[in-house]
């Protein structure tokens, strides 16, 4: 195919399994439908997942794992629900 901008011939390259066309003259790049998304997906695989926020400090006598691994979760324990409101 020809470059839509400068009409020089375009060459097909394979970038990480994604076919892209690059102009031999102006170096412009042509992407087919879905190829930009494919590249974005690949890029996000490269960036490291964000580390979880560090747990706030807890005392040495606290629950194991510095307050993690406790009894909270998706559903609060009924007994703790009551404790939240009691002297």
């Amino acid at each position, binding site marked *: 195919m020809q470059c839509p901008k400068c009409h020089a011939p375009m060459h097909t390259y394979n970038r990480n399994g994604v076919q892209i066309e690059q102009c031999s003259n102006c170096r412009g790049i042509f992407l087919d439908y879905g190829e930009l998304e494919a590249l974005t997906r690949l890029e996000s695989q490269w960036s490291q997942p964000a580390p979880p926020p560090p747990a706030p400090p*807890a005392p040495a*006598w606290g629950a194991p794992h510095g307050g993690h691994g406790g009894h909270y979760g998706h559903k609060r324990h009924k*007994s703790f629900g009551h404790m*939240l409101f009691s*002297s």
Partner: protein
Amino acid sequence: MTATPLLAELTFRARAQAHERTSTCPCGAATLADRPDATVVRHADTVAKAHAPDTTPTDLTPRLTTAAHLPDVFLAPLTPTATPLQSRLITFWPYGAPVDPDDPDAAPWEAAGTLLARLHRTPAPTIPLPPMRGPAKAAHAVARLRDAGPHPAVAPVLHAWSRLPAWARAEAPMPDTTTLCHGDLHLGQLVRHPAPDGPWRLIDVDDLGAGVPAWDLARPAAWYACGLLPPDEWTRFLTAYREGDGPAVPADGDPWPALDVPARALTVQTAARALTKALARDRPLDEVEQSLVDACARMVSVPPQLAPSSAK
């Protein structure tokens, strides 16, 4: 719930007080609490509270006065002094909307932190005010546990208690005698006034007094330390307190040197209450209660941290 003479009379007094406030009372009435230490009834927008039997006017009146002077922190009482009723003292309050016990995820942790910071920054009142009652109540819970009978979990709780400094066991004056404290913070101590969406205010003046302000942060701190309160909720509470310039903990860095002793005391108190209750009903501890006892057991091998304020 059996209608005791006190409850019946208190209900009557609340109605009378409510009708004094408005001639168009819809007369919705409810019992909000009926415990040995407090009976609370609501009548429309008025709440009447019968305080614990051992409450004296000498202690209660300055606490009421202090709350009345801090309308940005405390729900203000309707009457400046308590009224005697059947050997109890009763007080009247406007109704405030509480935290929904069925939806603790909606807990106003930021408001709790902000209100406590505001309270702790308030100059101590010039009137004589009794000390904050937190340590005395913890000692009371431990005394009841001693009388409750044998159980393998009693020893670690009592042992953890014995390692606390004397002030935290109410056996010596607190190292801070000028900072105003609530003394019994939990989610039942916050209401929105005017209901249903006014600003959050603290209620319950019975333990109000001068003392170690970290005590007011120590119950959520204990819950967090025991793995019960999720880290994000603890962080929301602590951050709001620090953003309000609360003096109980340093502005940043590790808050635990200041929180350690009160959080241990509150863990022991909560474990003692749970254990006493379980023994009275002859039932095993549930996993939440067991986690408090386990924390007490671990405390024994880690000496209490000395807060900078308690070292002076």
